[in-house]
């Protein structure tokens, strides 16, 4: 029992603790404290100036009758449900294509990856806003193909389409994770399958997909978390409109906090968002459980 902690000779069990002190302090200050204090503030009415006034679960009851909350929650869930599956399928297809060993493939990989590193850069968001104006590039190209131009900002389905397309265009980071996982699959598997008379499509479903379970799950969670928090794009591109059709929970929380100074309510909302995200992640976890090895 004397040597419970296996460290090199002369190294105490506190050395490691000392090294991770920055992380521990940061966890308390920037994760745990805000997390708890957000919940406590969510139980109050607070304008940022006067003392918070305890109202119990009043804020949460208020939400049930608050049409702008119900709308924002619906918009956010719809956006997530449309974007995430599309993005995962897109990234996987691109990764499969880019996994070939042909000349110049590195250049293609880089080009497909670039939009995602510029990600939520405001310059890109501004550019995107221009692309979809009534006589912008996208409509010009549609007309060139003999199609009717679309009033992108005119109705909520198309306005959401603008944002979905922006995030889809940035599929590179998800793709890279898939690509790395694909490259870890030994080619012997495919050769053996080929010998056994297994076709390309069959070996995709019997070899590739099962071996990608963990990364699919990882990408799913990362993308759900990002999509549920969407703020930049609707804030800059559509302003949440038309008719609040792209008004996400992120925007609602921001407005309650900084526009209306309803800080208690804003914190309660952020907790609801946290719970929603946790629920979606848990659902994804449960849904994939049968198909997923432990990670």
């Amino acid at each position: 029992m004397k040597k419970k902690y296996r460290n090199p000779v002369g190294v105490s069990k506190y050395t490691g603790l000392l090294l991770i002190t920055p992380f521990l302090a940061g966890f308390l200050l920037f994760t745990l404290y805000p997390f708890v204090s957000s919940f406590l503030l969510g139980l109050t009415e607070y304008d940022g100036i006067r003392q918070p006034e305890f109202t119990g679960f009043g804020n949460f009851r208020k939400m049930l009758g608050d049409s702008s909350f119900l709308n924002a929650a619906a918009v956010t869930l719809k956006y997530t449900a449309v974007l995430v599956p599309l993005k995962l399928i897109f990234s996987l297809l691109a990764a499969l294509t880019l996994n070939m060993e042909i000349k110049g493939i590195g250049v293609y990989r880089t080009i497909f990856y670039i939009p995602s590193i510029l990600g939520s850069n405001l310059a890109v968001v501004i550019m995107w806003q221009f692309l979809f104006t009534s006589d912008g590039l996208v409509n010009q190209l549609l007309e060139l193909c003999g199609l009717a131009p679309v009033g992108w900002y005119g109705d909520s389905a198309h306005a959401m389409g603008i944002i979905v397309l922006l995030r889809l265009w940035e599929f590179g980071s998800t793709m890279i994770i898939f690509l790395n996982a694909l490259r870890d699959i030994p080619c012997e598997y495919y050769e053996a399958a080929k010998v056994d008379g297994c076709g390309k499509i069959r070996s995709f479903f019997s070899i590739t997909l099962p071996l990608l379970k963990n990364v699919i799950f990882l990408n799913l969670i990362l993308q759900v978390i990002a999509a549920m928090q969407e703020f930049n794009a609707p804030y800059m591109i559509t302003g949440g409109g038309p008719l609040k059709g792209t008004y996400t929970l992120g925007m609602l929380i921001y407005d309650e906090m900084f526009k209306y100074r309803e800080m208690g309510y804003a914190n309660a909302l952020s907790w609801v968002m946290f719970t929603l995200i946790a629920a979606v992640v848990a659902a994804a976890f449960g849904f994939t459980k049968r198909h997923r090895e432990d990670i």
Partner: protein
Amino acid sequence: MKKAAAYLLLTVGAAVMIYPLLWLAGASLKSNDEIFSSPWFMPESVDLSVYARAWQTVTGYTMGHYFLNTFAVIIPKTLFAVVSSVLTAYGFSRFDFPFKRLFFALLMGTMFMPAIVTIMPMYLMWSRLGALDTYIPLTVPALFAAEGSFVFMLTRFFSGVPKEFDEAARIDGCNSVQLLVHILVPCVRPVIVSISVFTFLWTMNDFLTPLIMISSVEKYPLSLILRLSADSTGNGYEQCKILAMSVIGLIPSIAVFGLAQKKFISGITAGGLSG
């Protein structure tokens, strides 16, 4: 034949991916009429004077001023992130200590914590400390290994360095600090490049945090000055000017990515982290 089809598919895909950026660069040199009439990205004539006007911004400060502001955040933040992540990862991968598994689980947990839940209490905390409208809220959290994914990536890399290296170094009289500095850090240089590049890119892209924490126009980072300029453009305004500002705003990210690309890609390839 099959190869040709693959190249065709890839080239079409690449064109779709890159054309918006080409269009942005070209449109920044076009007149309003031309922007909204011709889908081809090349302008009819090239007149770079719009960039001189864009450089002046709309605030009385030049873009140069806002670049300096941004770098005043990025440089300390990158340094803080690298040092704190390396120390934390070193602790987790090379030492045994009480509650190690629990702490590592917490670290993984922070990676899945939605920023929106923590950002408002942080705003109130910084406000109470009188640190709003300074760069403290933007930089100081990096001092505390705030990015779990960086630590995770480094831990995986440290684990790949054989323990025999450590033993040999210790026999030669290295203490824990020397071991880290002389043996382990050189082994994980590509990861450190990746961490720095990610910190750079993410800080360039960050919009919500400065939007909340920084209020005076003279302290704005690039993202906020772009928003301000985009908001203040009405009908009939010279659209190419805001597009030119966007191009200027993207140059640092593209340049850093281009410079570090090789090391950076090898870092994320092996580390499983990505933007």
